[in-house]
């Protein structure tokens, strides 16, 4: 194709997990380089397979853009000799001089250069600047030096521009660009001559290489679903696994293998985790979701009989390992495992897991909670969790079931790590949610208490995720996570427990923890509910004690206020609120004095209807903070009506504030005025939020 640049960096196998990102990074990196070289180009596309990263630039113009460079000359006051010398050296005439701030300048146009001649340098720059997460160097025998960094050794570089090959030495990797590539490593390892992208794609397709990542992924998905359906099975969908297996093959062949019946006694979670982690096999289920004795696998060449036997055999070896662990583990009770928790470090400054459990015990209240707390971390010492750390909790739950613990306890142990992030669900039972809360609040108090804080993108102890987990538990649980205590009580009790264990925590730990939680709550509402930051701040600051936030109430209110900002009249309320706050903040009136002063004494009784409306709004203000987060997206009709009366009152306030003197000379009138404004401000704060945080009508 005319003015098409095709570049393929052919290397040893690129890790599957990095391929998707490499495609977008390659486009950004190469585009930046093309801009630096002042070339004009159209769209840029990228492709990837295990052994190649490919770029296609459309409409790459043959000549660079004309660039103009402004060159500074002598000062205007310089002699003719200096000026003539400047003109001569720049190849310009006197009429080309430009005068700016007492200096002469000339504009020098650089001549366009041939893009073909720049491609070699652009490729070198591309290799040098491609941001691999982890990369390596290899030895260049000819140059007696190490190569530039790349994900794995580069073996060949294909480059074709405008229909003909580019032949350039890329010194940093010791290779000359060429006009050919290679097919599938095993099925078609031949050389493929390429003159344009269509030829490249078709040539590779014929040589069993799929360079379109998304297409390859879809192909696997469809093939596996179809082959499973033929056997009456469903594939347990796994997005991450699908990405990974797609990145492991140049061409995907899908096969359904068999699990030996003897292993079907293993817990389904163990089966599917072992298959996924060790073998990258997909789990199959029957339509009723019961795990089936089959698996799905993607191979790089067609499956032969010996291969199919091999795939089954390696799974048998894996599962017999798992069975061995399972059998050994079941010889030991969870209590016995739990006794060894003193050998497991929670954190070097915060002692062992056994100490953590002791502290959690100090905030647990019921018998069930004590039992669940005592056993919840026992599985960390099982061989199964040693082998599959991702099954922590799950294994504890399974083993609790085997040793006949109650259903509630089993589920609580299984789910007590939830929610693991902002999008995860909370434990399904109150018991599980409470244990999760104990665990997380203990971690947060201890870690923050010894001065560990996340910085920028670094949060090695996952404090942010822990805090988000706590916020979610508080906001989303059906039951009352805090039971009859306050959040402060839990924090203080844990601080005491730490101190009793001889762990020195900072004196202000309690405050730091509460602030950290409030801050995470803010992020959680902004990101999770897509509520703007000023609305969240208005809501958070409308609560009396910001560090002791009623999270469920705050979240309901954020959602409601966010909705209210979209209504007509919101800006009137905002303006009136600010005005009212400005006035009461300014007044020297002691609002608690003069019990005999009535609203009717106010000089603001200009428009009686509006005062009535304000009254109604004030009276309707009942503190209806529900503990449970309202799930509905739209606030109910009552909210709308409420808001209309507040808006009406706000309009009235704006109107009269211009007309009357609020700080009336008569103390009685002055007090009545101030009280009315305060009542209004109170209603707005209570129902909507502290709107001084909302800076402009469009900020929300």
């Amino acid at each position, binding site marked *: 194709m005319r003015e098409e640049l095709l570049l393929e960096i052919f290397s040893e196998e690129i*890790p*599957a997990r990095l391929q998707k990102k490499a495609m977008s990074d390659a486009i950004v990196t190469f585009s930046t380089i093309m801009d630096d070289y002042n070339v004009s180009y159209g769209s840029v596309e990228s492709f990837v397979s295990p052994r190649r990263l490919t770029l296609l630039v459309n409409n790459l113009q043959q000549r660079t853009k004309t660039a103009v460079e402004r060159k500074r000359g002598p000062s205007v006051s310089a002699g003719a000799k200096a000026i003539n010398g400047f003109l001569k050296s720049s190849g310009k005439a006197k009429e080309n001089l430009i005068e700016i701030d007492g200096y002469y300048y000339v504009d020098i146009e650089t001549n366009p250069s041939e893009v073909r001649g720049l491609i070699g340098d652009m490729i070198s720059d591309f290799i040098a600047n491609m941001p691999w997460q982890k990369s390596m160097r290899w030895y260049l025998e000819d140059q007696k030096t190490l190569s530039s960094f790349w994900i794995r050794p580069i073996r060949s570089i294909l480059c074709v521009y405008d229909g003909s090959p580019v032949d350039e030495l890329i010194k940093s990797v010791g290779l000359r660009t060429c006009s050919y590539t290679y097919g599938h490593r095993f099925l078609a390892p031949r050389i493929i001559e390429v003159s344009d992208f269509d030829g490249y794609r078709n040539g590779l397709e014929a040589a069993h290489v799929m360079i379109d990542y998304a297409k390859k992924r879809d192909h696997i998905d469809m093939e596996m679903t179809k082959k499973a359906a033929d056997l009456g099975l469903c594939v347990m969908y796994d997005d991450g696994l699908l990405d990974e297996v797609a990145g492991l093959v140049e061409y995907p062949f899908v096969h359904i293998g068999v699990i030996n019946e003897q292993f079907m006694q293993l817990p389904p979670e163990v089966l599917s985790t072992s298959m996924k982690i060790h073998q990258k096999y997909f789990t199959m289920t029957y339509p009723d979701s019961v795990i089936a004795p089959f698996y799905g696998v993607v191979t790089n*060449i067609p499956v032969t009989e010996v*291969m199919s036997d091999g*795939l089954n055999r390696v799974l048998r*070896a894996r599962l017999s390992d798992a069975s*061995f662990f399972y059998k050994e583990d079941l010889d030991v009770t969870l209590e016995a495992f739990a006794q060894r928790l003193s050998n497991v470090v929670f954190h070097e400054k915060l002692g062992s897991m056994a100490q953590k459990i002791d502290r959690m015990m100090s905030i647990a209240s019921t018998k069930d909670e004590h039992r669940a707390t005592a056993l919840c971390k026992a599985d960390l010492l099982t061989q199964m969790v040693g082998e599959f750390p991702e099954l922590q909790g799950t294994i504890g739950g399974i083993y609790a079931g085997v040793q006949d613990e109650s259903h509630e306890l089993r589920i609580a142990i299984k789910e007590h790590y939830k929610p693991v992030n902002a999008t995860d669900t909370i434990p399904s039972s109150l018991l599980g949610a409470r244990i999760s809360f104990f665990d997380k609040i203990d971690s947060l108090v201890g870690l923050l208490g010894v001065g560990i804080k996340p910085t920028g993108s670094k949060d090695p102890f996952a404090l942010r995720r822990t805090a988000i987990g706590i916020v979610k538990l508080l906001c989303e649980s059906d039951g009352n996570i805090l039971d009859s205590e306050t959040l402060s009580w839990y924090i203080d009790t844990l601080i005491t427990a730490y101190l009793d264990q001889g762990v020195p925590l900072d004196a202000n730990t309690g405050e730091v923890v509460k602030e950290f939680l409030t801050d995470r709550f803010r992020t959680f509402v902004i990101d999770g509910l897509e509520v703007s930051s000023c609305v969240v701040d208005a809501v958070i600051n409308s609560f009396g004690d910001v560090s002791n936030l009623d999270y469920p109430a705050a979240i309901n209110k954020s959602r409601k206020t966010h909705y209210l900002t979209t209504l007509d009249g919101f800006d009137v309320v905002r303006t009136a609120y600010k005005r009212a706050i400005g006035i009461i903040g300014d007044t020297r009136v002691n609002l608690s004095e003069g019990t005999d002063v009535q609203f009717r004494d106010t000089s603001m009784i200009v428009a009686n209807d509006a005062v009535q409306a304000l009254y109604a709004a004030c009276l309707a203000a009942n503190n209806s903070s529900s503990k449970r987060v309202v799930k509905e997206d739209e606030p109910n009709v009552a909210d709308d009506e409420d808001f209309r009366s507040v808006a009406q009152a706000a309009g009235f306030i704006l109107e009269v504030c211009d007309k009357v003197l609020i700080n009336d000379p008569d103390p009685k009138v002055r007090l009545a005025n101030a009280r009315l404004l305060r009542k209004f401000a109170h209603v707005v704060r209570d129902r909507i939020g502290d709107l001084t945080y909302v800076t402009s009508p469009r900020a929300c």
Partner: protein
Amino acid sequence: MISFQDIIFRLQKFWDEHGCAILQPYDTEVGAGTSHYATTLKALDNQYWAAAFVQPCRRPKDGRYADNPNRTQYYYQFQVIIKPAPANPQELYLDSLKAVGFDMAAHDIRFVEDDWENPSLGAAGLGWEVWCDGMEITQYTYFQQVGGINCSIVPVEITYGLERIATFMQGVESHFDINWNGKEGDQKLTYGDVLLRFEREFSCYNFDAASIDILSKHFEDYEVECRRLLAHNLVMPAYEQCIKANHGFNLLDARGIISVTERAGYIARVRALAKSCCQAWVESL
């Protein structure tokens, strides 16, 4: 059917034909062929180097009293180290599999990312585990660093798991069923005939019987001796003390008396020794 020993013979022959010195195992306990000075120390100088050898490996914690068919505390690696890595190391490796008898048209060979790291030796590299029909049969690594020192010439290390390859090629399910000498009937010797009792008794030793006092004392002695020898600029004997200390730590670890904090401390001590040895080695070149 190819015997266990024939796999070794063929690998030795293949790498002999490709210029490697065929060495014998290091005669002290190591956790991997990487610990052989022919890998670590030799990776750090500026000379051409190519060697291949079988290395028995000891990983005390992996013992299962011979009850587990695939996990043992003692097993064999076939180790290849070539420096600098040639221009076509993957092709050479695949050819070596063919030499052993793999049918490339019938088996799914894949290079699956696995960046190798050995914290005790301060060594790291990039590479893959090589899968054959889903089974890991080889670890393939381009060293970048040893003893915390960057490699000025990057070697390739290819480590074959001999039992894995043998179970695969012989179609058996257990290491102990591997036919060692290729004979049938009365003369057949299996892996189990050679190593079953060894595996059982060493599992007992590693997990239950080894004297913690003696092991702890040994660890201290190896550490002191390593430093003393370094002071005399005897790098290779010092390095040997370092890997003995490492094995001593592995035994203590298997005895289950090392807490997680202590564990990190032991690893740091071994790494400090390894680093000093590598440093001394580079300085003495």
